[in-house]
Each structure stands twice: as C-alpha cells, then as structure tokens.
C-alpha cells in the first residue's frame, strides 16, 4: 500500500525535510513528500496540524527553519523567482482589490508575468465561468465568484502546479461540487499537478488521487485513494462485507463453521454482520445460509471511509 519512491522527472514538487520553528514551538517537523504531474494530492490533517504553514513555506511567503522545497528543479529558498514561476496558488481566501473590477484585478496579475496574452486571459475567464461578471467590481462578488477569480489568477501564467489552501471553505454544496469538477478537469486538460489542503475528508476522498496525512506538523501516512477498496477485488485479499439476514445470531453460528471467514462485528438490532472474507467465498456463504433457511436481505461492501481511516491514523480527536 505504501507509495513507492518517486525519482523520475515527472516530479513537479518536492518537499525535503521541511521544518518550521517559531520560538520553541515546532509547527512543521521534517516533512517530506512529492507530487507528480497530473496528480491531485490532498494535504490532510486536523486543525493546527500545520497545513497552512506548510503551504506558505512552499510558496515562499514564510521562511523555513530547515529543509527545502524544490519546484521543477529549482529551490524556493535560493532560486525564488525561478521556482515560483511554475506555481499558481490561493493561500487561504482569495483576496483581491475590492474597488477594482474582476478584469482589472486579473490584468494586475497579467502584467506581473511576461507573455500572458489577452487570449490566455479570456480562455481562463471562460474556464472558470466568470465571463459575465468581469466588469463588476470584486466588492460585489459572492464568495463562490471570488474563489473562481482566485483560480483564474492562479492559472493565468500556465503553472505546472496549482496549490490551493482550503479551496472549498465557505462554498455551498453546489459550489463544492463545481470546484471538484474544475480541479479534475484542470488536472486532466492542462496536465498540471494539484495540491489541495483540507480537513473535509469526504471531499478529499472524491477529489484527490492521493492523500498525505500530517498531524502536529509530522508526516503520518500517505495513501492512494481507491486503493484500499479497489485492490481487494483484483487480489486475494480479504475485504469487508456487510451481511443483513433475518437472524444475525443464528447466521453467526453457521458462519463460524466456514473456513476463511471471520466475523468482525454483529449488530443484533439491525441483524447485520460485518465479515472479513474473500470474494470467492461469497457463493459458499449464501449456499450455507439458505441451506439453513436463513433469509439473506443484503450483501454489500462495507467500505471503510477515509474518515474511519483518518481517525485511525490521527488517533481521533481534534477533527474540525
């Protein structure tokens, strides 16, 4: 399950033992991970885990006490202008000049990088769907519109990595879904890597291809999303199955006779059992139950959600 070390040149962003100390407090501690082209990676952690601090160090807004961040081969510490060129980012909320129109704001960022054509600007505006609001002052924008404008400014200079800090903060369900679709579309069409920080677990599960979990500034684990559920189908690994019958206690008695199946839990009021078993044993299980005239109402994957995993990794508590 562990992700293999990536040494190939597809690596866009690489953190090497990044550490941030403020006074005696260590906010981020020896954090290392990397992101490849086209990947959407979630930076996950409870509140105060150091997600925002990590992101600010990646984009050079704050200095690091130790370690380095390498973006497309350039160090953000020693070759800032060369490294930051490849980065588009929104750190916390996208903040604009409220008294200017959306277009005037984007033009500010257009002037800051050489070679951004008006066509590029229009294309990005169209991609985020803000065409009709471009001449309105940002003051009159809703939060969702400001998020979109934020994405537009981040994409303007064709970055190879997009870094978003809590991009769904304050968005309504429709906005969250829209944001997720954008991110996937951008990763696919523009082929860029995306790093998203969040504590919204279900959201990360749907958006990201991989998550990096940190807690108290330290690396906890790294998981490929979908792997923990999908891998069982192809291998002989045991998977968690939920079974609902008319009499859970009786069913449990019979199941114990079968080899290769273990009962994880029995929920008597609902007559549900959670089993660990291989897919190939399911027909035997059904045959056995019907032979003993037990009614089977449901057999389903008992997916362990990212939330469950997350609680396991971070030891519960402190989750926003």
């Amino acid at each position, binding site marked *: 399950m562990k992700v293999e070390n990536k040494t190939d040149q597809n690596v866009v962003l690489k953190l090497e033992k990044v550490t941030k100390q403020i006074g005696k407090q260590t906010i981020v501690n020896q954090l290392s991970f990397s992101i490849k082209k086209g990947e959407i990676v979630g930076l996950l952690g409870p509140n105060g885990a150091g997600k925002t601090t990590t992101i600010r160090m990646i984009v050079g*807004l704050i200095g690091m006490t130790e370690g380095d961040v390498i973006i497309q081969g350039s160090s953000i510490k020693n070759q800032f202008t060369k490294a930051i060129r490849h980065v588009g980012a929104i750190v*916390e909320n996208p*903040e604009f*000049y409220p008294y200017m129109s959306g277009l005037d704001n984007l033009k500010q960022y257009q002037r*800051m990088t050489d070679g951004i054509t008006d066509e590029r600007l229009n294309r990005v505006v169209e991609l985020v769907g803000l065409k009709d609001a471009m001449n309105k002052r940002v003051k009159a924008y809703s939060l969702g519109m400001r998020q979109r404008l934020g994405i537009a*400014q981040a994409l303007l200079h064709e970055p190879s990595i997009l870094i978003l800090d809590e991009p769904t903060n304050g968005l309504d369900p429709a906005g969250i879904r829209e944001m997720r679709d954008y991110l996937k579309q951008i990763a696919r069409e523009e082929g860029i890597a995306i790093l998203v920080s969040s504590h919204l677990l279900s959201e990360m599960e749907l958006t990201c291809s991989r998550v990096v979990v940190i807690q108290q500034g330290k690396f906890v684990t790294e998981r490929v999303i979908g792997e923990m559920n999908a891998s069982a189908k192809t291998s002989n690994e045991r998977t968690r199955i939920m079974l609902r019958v008319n009499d859970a206690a009786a069913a449990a008695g019979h199941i114990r006779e079968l080899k290769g199946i273990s009962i994880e839990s029995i929920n008597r009021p609902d007559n549900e059992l959670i089993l660990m078993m291989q897919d190939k044993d399911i027909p035997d299980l059904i045959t056995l139950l019907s032979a003993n005239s037990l009614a089977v109402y449901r057999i389903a994957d008992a997916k362990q959600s990212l939330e469950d995993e997350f609680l396991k990794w971070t030891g519960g508590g402190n989750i926003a």
Partner: protein
Amino acid sequence: MRSFMRLVQNEWLKLAKKRSFYIAYGIMAAVVIGAAILIKQFGGGELPATTDFVDLILAVDGLGGVFVMIATIFTAGIVSIEHQLGSVKMLLIRSHSRSTILASKYAAMLIYIVVMLIFTGVLASATGMVLFNGDSLPWSEVLQTAGYQLLYTVIYATLMFMFSVLTRSTGATIGVGLFLMMFEGIITMLLSRYDFAKYILFLNMNLSVYDSGSAPIEGMSMGFSSIVIAVYMLLFLAVSFVTFNKRDVA
C-alpha cells in the same frame, strides 16, 4: 526594465482606481483657489504678484505644509493596504523578488508626489495669473521653491513608507506622520540648544533656509544638510527593504 515599469503601472492603477484618488486633487484645488480668494478679499490694497502667490502655495514654510500632508496621507497605505486586504499573498507569489515589488511601490509613490506637485504648481500659476498680476519674484526662484518642497515631501513620504512597511497599518502610519508634522517644529525648537540637534532630520529637511544665507544652527550648511538627509533616507529605505524581505507573511 519593461517588466519593472509594468509593476509600477500596477501600483499606479491601485492608487488611481480608488475613488479617493480624486479627493486629494480636489483638496489641493480647494486650498489653492480658497487661498487666492481670501487674499484677494481680505488682503487690503497690497496684493501679491503672481509669482509671489505661487511661491506662497509651494513654499515649505508657506502653505506647502498642506501639500505634504495630502501627498503623504494618500500614499501612506501603499504597502500596508496589501497586508490589510490580504492581497499581499497574491502579490508576493509572482516571479519577482520582494525587493522589486517594494521598489515598484516606492517608484509609484514618487511619481504620485511629482504629479501632484505639478498639478498644484500649474493650478496655482493659473489662479495667480487670473487674480493677481506682475512678477516680483523671478520664476526660476519659484521653481527652486518647488524643488525644496519636492525634497521635503519625498523625505516625509520615505519616512512614512518605512512606517507603512513596519506597522502594516495605514491608520498608524498616517497617525505617526501627522504627529511628526505637527510637532516637528516644537521638537526641534526644544532640542535646538543642544549641539547634537544639528543631526536631527527635521532641522535639515528644509533646504530653503540656506537661501537667505542663515543657518538653523551655527555650523550647518547646505552641504551638511544634504549629507544628513542622504544618510537618513538610506537608513529609512534600508529598514524598509530589509524588513519587507525578511518578513513572514501570515
């Protein structure tokens, strides 16, 4: 260089797109025209010549104090407003060093002051020509007055630029600036009996005093004051740039 000019253009637009941009010009226009009308109405028989009037408006020890106040108040937020809006995060993650960004802000501020001074000078000349007549002072001396005023304003603006970087608060910057403008006279007066007073910036800022051949404190000269000014300016800019470069932007 072209890319630096575009940064300056950005900074200029950030100042100019604000509605309050024109208020500064409105106030200066009101001061110039108001002063002219007051002099005309209540000045008795002795009306100043056109050049005298322009000189009065621009002189550091004439009505120039108003100009300094207006010019610095409207540029005081040039750095701090980015922190207050949070837009500094977007500004600093572009492919420019922090020094370049800060330099573009300083340049935009200088341009603002020069444009404002030209506006005030031209308006004062036009008003003077309509309401008064005759030249008693040569125009070259009026220009010199404008030059002293420009220097005086730029020194104040640089000092407030530093405060803007240090405090990240427009209000605090304007507060400190106004306090110094109001009390610089008293402070220097109280301290002027000590010998070290000649190294105080405020005593050296107005170079026009040397035109009459006198000096605020014995031993001071145009050259001496120029060096003191240069040292202070370098200090203010060094503090601004070092702070801005080192700062963790939260």
